[in-house]
């Protein structure tokens, strides 16, 4: 029976030859992760279940990235729980302030996620690692506790949607624009419970950073996972990151899909998702006159090296509008180091930008840039729900790094070519 890449990975981890969409399986996991918001509940459930040791100290990762460096006493106390548990269990990969990055940026960078693996995380954006050809999905803290204790998780095998992107992207258009456009077409539940499988020449041409951005937002269409096939770019990106071997799976040509959708992206413009849903998408040229108070460039969606590079290219020799508080947050320490080395830090500082240590911070209205009533932000993050970044009367416009940087300069939602030409 022909199978998709998702079905093959799940079958292997369930110890089976094949699995069918809709069936419940018990899958062995290769990595379980949680952060400073979700891990405290997981640790409590872990004890309550009667568990004493994690199934494998090399395969459980705790990442204090949301409210760190600790924004208040409660956040500091939560980090203590994580730190103590990591020590007690001898977790091999525990990263604290000064080394920690945003989980979904750092984990692949550190070689902790590899093709063909099954990864669960107590964070909805765990779907990010699908960019590497892994099955990766978000779960709640209690599911995660069970995964930490037993090294397995129950899963419903998802149906797959095959998304095919033809054409060649124009300049200033990237992974964020493709995925926003796709969510705009599918709706926020268009891929509910399903695997989004990305294909086509535009995907082949996309950088790994662009693919991480796309897989990251699969959840915003309701998907269980987003997944890409391993190609030469994936292999190059993985080189030297992990001593572990990995297994490459790919969909059979006659695999069956719940749906097949084709897009032509040659004429695609940079996209913006208007408040208050990631599916409320329009091309930036149709944004109208939207004046901004803040611009955020970073997050597990767009805090990677390529995102920083795009922002630096646009901000080089320019100033952000004094009315737009502009905050750049690299996703990891290696990215921050690279920003210094390549001179981008200076570009940002000269442009009037605040640059932060890695943190999820403003994306969820945590700290480092919370919005007041009536304020508007353009942000390279992933959600623009009511009150997401602060006051219930504030607004978030989601875009890629090029639109965010250009808009910070002009003070309103702007196509990057307007400031670059």
């Amino acid at each position, binding site marked *: 029976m022909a199978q998709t890449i998702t079905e093959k990975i799940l079958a292997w981890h369930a110890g089976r030859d094949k699995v069918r969409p809709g069936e*419940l*399986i*018990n899958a062995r996991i290769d990595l379980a992760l949680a952060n400073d*918001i*979700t891990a*405290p*509940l997981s640790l409590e*459930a872990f004890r*309550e*279940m*009667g568990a004493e040791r994690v199934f494998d100290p090399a395969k459980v990762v705790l990442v204090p990235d949301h*409210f760190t460096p600790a924004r208040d006493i*409660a*956040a500091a106390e939560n980090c203590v729980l994580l730190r103590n548990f990591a020590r007690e269990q001898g977790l091999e990969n525990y990263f604290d302030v000064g080394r920690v990055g945003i989980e979904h940026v750092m984990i692949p960078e550190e070689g902790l996620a590899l093709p063909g693996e099954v990864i669960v995380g*107590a*964070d*909805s954006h*765990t779907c990010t690692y699908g960019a590497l050809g892994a099955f990766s999905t*978000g*779960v*709640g*803290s*209690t*599911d995660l*506790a*069970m995964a930490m*204790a*037993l090294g*397995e998780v*129950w899963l419903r095998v998802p149906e797959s949607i095959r998304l095919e992107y033809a054409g060649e992207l124009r300049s200033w258009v990237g992974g964020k624009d493709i995925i926003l456009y796709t969510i705009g077409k599918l709706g*926020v*539940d268009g891929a*509910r*419970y399903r695997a989004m499988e990305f294909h086509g020449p535009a995907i082949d041409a996309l950088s790994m950073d662009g693919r991480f951005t796309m897989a990251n937002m699969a*959840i915003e269409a*309701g998907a*269980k996972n987003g997944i890409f096939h391993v190609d030469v770019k994936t292999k190059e990106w993985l080189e030297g990151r992990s001593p572990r071997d990995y297994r490459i799976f790919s969909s059979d040509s006659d695999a069956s899909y719940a749906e097949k959708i084709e897009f032509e992206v040659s004429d695609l413009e940079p996209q913006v998702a208007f408040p208050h*849903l990631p599916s409320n998408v329009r091309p930036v040229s149709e944004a109208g006159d939207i004046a901004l108070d803040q611009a955020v460039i970073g997050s597990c969606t767009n805090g990677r090296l390529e995102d920083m590079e795009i922002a630096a290219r646009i901000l080089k020799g320019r100033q952000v509008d004094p009315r737009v508080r502009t905050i750049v947050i690299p996703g990891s320490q290696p990215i921050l180091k690279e920003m210094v080395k390549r001179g981008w830090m200076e570009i940002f500082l000269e442009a009037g930008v605040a640059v932060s240590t890695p943190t999820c911070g403003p994306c*969820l*209205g*945590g700290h480092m840039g919370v919005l007041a009533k009536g304020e508007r932000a353009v942000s390279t993050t992933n*959600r623009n*729900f*009511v*009150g*997401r970044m602060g006051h*219930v009367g504030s607004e978030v416009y989601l875009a890629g790094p090029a639109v965010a940087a250009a808009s910070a300069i002009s003070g309103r939602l702007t196509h990057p070519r307007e400031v670059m030409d």
Partner: protein
Amino acid sequence: MGDSKILTGRAHVFGDDVNTDYIISGRYKFKTLDMNELACHCMEDIDPDFASKVEPGDFIVAGANFGCGSSREQAPLVIKHAGVSAVLASSFARIFFRNAINKGLPVVECDTSQIEPGDDLEVDLSEGKVRNLTRGVEMDIAPLPSVMMDILADGGLTDYLRKHGGFKL
């Protein structure tokens, strides 16, 4: 399935795409893990009076994609602590759905288009029926897989695992 209790209460009706930030806003969610305190702010940004008018046993009734957004278990926990006995929706976001089962909050996928605010409902999970007593309508609901029924019957995944010492599908 342990007990076959019938849930009864009034309907509080919401639309499509009720996200986890609506269920409990980040303004409160990150300040405390005291669910009874958080329950006072349940659904606040979409229905400011919800916490004061909901009575023990009532139902949240919604359209498509209920619970989309974050993976945090505060969402089903806050609903449960507000006194809601079950959530009925035409569809659920998948992480919310499994979290609800894992935390012992019944979730029922059914056609909710004919349910009006204030309707008296009766939900029988073991028989797979939703009865709208106000309108005299009865609906069949697809049964949950038996493992999910067992988890619900034990009050959630933690209690289930403590009781059974492991997990079998």
